């Protein structure tokens, strides 16, 4: 039974009030009030110029983009075969694969980060393995540097990519691949000329969602990175918690928010189907 206009809005009202009061208004208020502290528009722009082009912020922006790009690429390379296998698996194999993706996916980010801190430490399993195999002669520094950040973030973000790719790959009609094969295509040709184009939208969506989430990452780089791995989200937290520099935090927030929303807009265009995997 379709709802009338008025009952529909009544049902929506509580959620909209929450979204307004706890999300939109606070963000708007925080940004406006913080920037007003700076004075006129000219003064705001001057401050923006000074803050965003300063060494610390500029460096953090470059770090953020670089780390996000590397992590997204790694996640795609690792996620693609896993998703492919998942989309073709059935029965027990599928259930096990799903478990391997879903259990980490729903485990707290901080627990997953901690797990890698245990593995990558000086006396961690990885170093023990490397030493035991004689690949290195002394423990390698895998934690509190860029390597640690990239390993940790890749692990945390992998399930988002896999679930997005899986949805796209599952939708491919297997008969199309058989048809291509029957027309004489080699397996490589079937993959490159049929399967890839049909799943490309999933790849684009997966890359975008991974990149968007990576841009705003905070917990993993803060725990696994070194002093040179400051990302923009960490800087925002630091400005607020340590120095109470609200205007600075607001300026960086605007940059992060604008980039995120532009990419989200792109993402929405690639996922017109609302059944697609949700972050």
């Amino acid at each position, binding site marked *: 039974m379709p709802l009338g206009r008025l009952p*529909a809005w009544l049902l929506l009202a509580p959620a909209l009030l929450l979204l307004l009061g706890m999300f939109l208004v606070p963000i708007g208020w925080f940004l406006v009030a913080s920037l007003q502290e700076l004075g006129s528009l000219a003064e705001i722009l001057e401050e923006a110029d000074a803050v965003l082009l300063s060494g610390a912020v500029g460096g953090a922006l470059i770090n953020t983009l670089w780390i996000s790009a590397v992590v997204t690429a790694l996640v795609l390379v690792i996620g693609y075969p896993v998703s492919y296998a998942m989309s073709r698996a059935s029965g027990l194999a599928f259930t096990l694969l799903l478990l391997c993706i879903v259990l980490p996916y729903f485990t707290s980010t901080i627990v997953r980060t901690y797990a890698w801190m245990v593995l990558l430490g000086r006396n961690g399993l990885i170093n023990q393995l490397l030493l035991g195999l004689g690949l290195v002669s002394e423990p390698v520094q895998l934690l509190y540097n860029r390597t640690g950040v990239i390993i940790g973030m890749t692990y945390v973000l992998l399930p988002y990519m896999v679930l997005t790719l899986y949805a796209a790959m599952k939708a491919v009609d297997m008969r199309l691949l058989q048809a291509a094969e029957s027309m004489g295509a080699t397996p490589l040709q079937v993959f490159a000329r049929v399967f890839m184009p049909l799943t490309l939208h999933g790849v684009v969506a997966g890359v975008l969602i991974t990149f968007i989430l990576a841009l705003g990452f905070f917990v993993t780089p803060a725990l696994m990175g070194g002093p040179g791995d400051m990302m923009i989200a960490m800087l925002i937290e630091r400005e*607020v918690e340590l120095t109470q520099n609200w205007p600075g935090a607001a300026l960086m927030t605007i940059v992060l928010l604008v980039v995120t929303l532009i990419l*989200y807009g792109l993402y929405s265009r690639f996922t017109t189907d609302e059944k697609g995997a949700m972050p």
Partner: protein
Amino acid sequence: MMGPVLRATLLKALVVLLAFGLLAPIIVVAIASFSGDGYLKFPPETFSTRWYARFLGDARWRSAIVNSVFIGLMTSALSTFLGFLTAYAMLRGNFRFKKVLASLLLTPVIVPHVITAVAVYFLSARLGVVGVRPWIAVAHTVVALPVVLVILQSALRTVDPALERAAMVCGCTRWGVFRRVVLPLAFPGIVSAALFSFLTSFDELVISIFLAGIRSETLPVRIWNSLLLEVEPTIAAVSTLLIAVTSVALGVDAVLRRVRG
């Protein structure tokens, strides 16, 4: 050129390796939490439950459990209730701006949690509600709501509108249709939504860091605060508890899915 059998075997081996790599860190933490050694070592040389004893023997950790559970339950109840009303209206409602509204309702997952956290902290500091647990639950509801919406919209989509019409012809009021038809049919989905919104709150860290204050540290915040100092084995025990909660939630959900058919 590789033979097809060899290629398939290689792909399988690669996938098994990657899948194991995904699960391994979690298993390692769970095993390490039962270590009897004085410091974190894997594999442990001796086994004991000493880290659990230390974890549960500490008043601050215990209060963190209470806080996490309390805030999680409130978030779950609030977001499931709001999410159900919203999902129903989005599915059956006929109004303008539906698409805009749908993307708006999902933005809290997309906008970096740091931004939401800083903004809500800005508001809360002015209202003097930092460290108030129901307030933290309300903030968690913002990020739990999209999760609930996705689950409930797919659950409600399986309720044929013709069933609601049939109930109306049979004499049901709008509330009667709701109670006798929609609610029972959507029940497994509602339980799933409640589980996953609880999990979202239970695992949430960034917003909690800002809003918890000293009074209302949740488990993730407490882990965060200790990890900033050192990687100690007690945290393995705490992490294992969190992993167990996640596993139980996923297990219950899997059973519900089977019931739903």
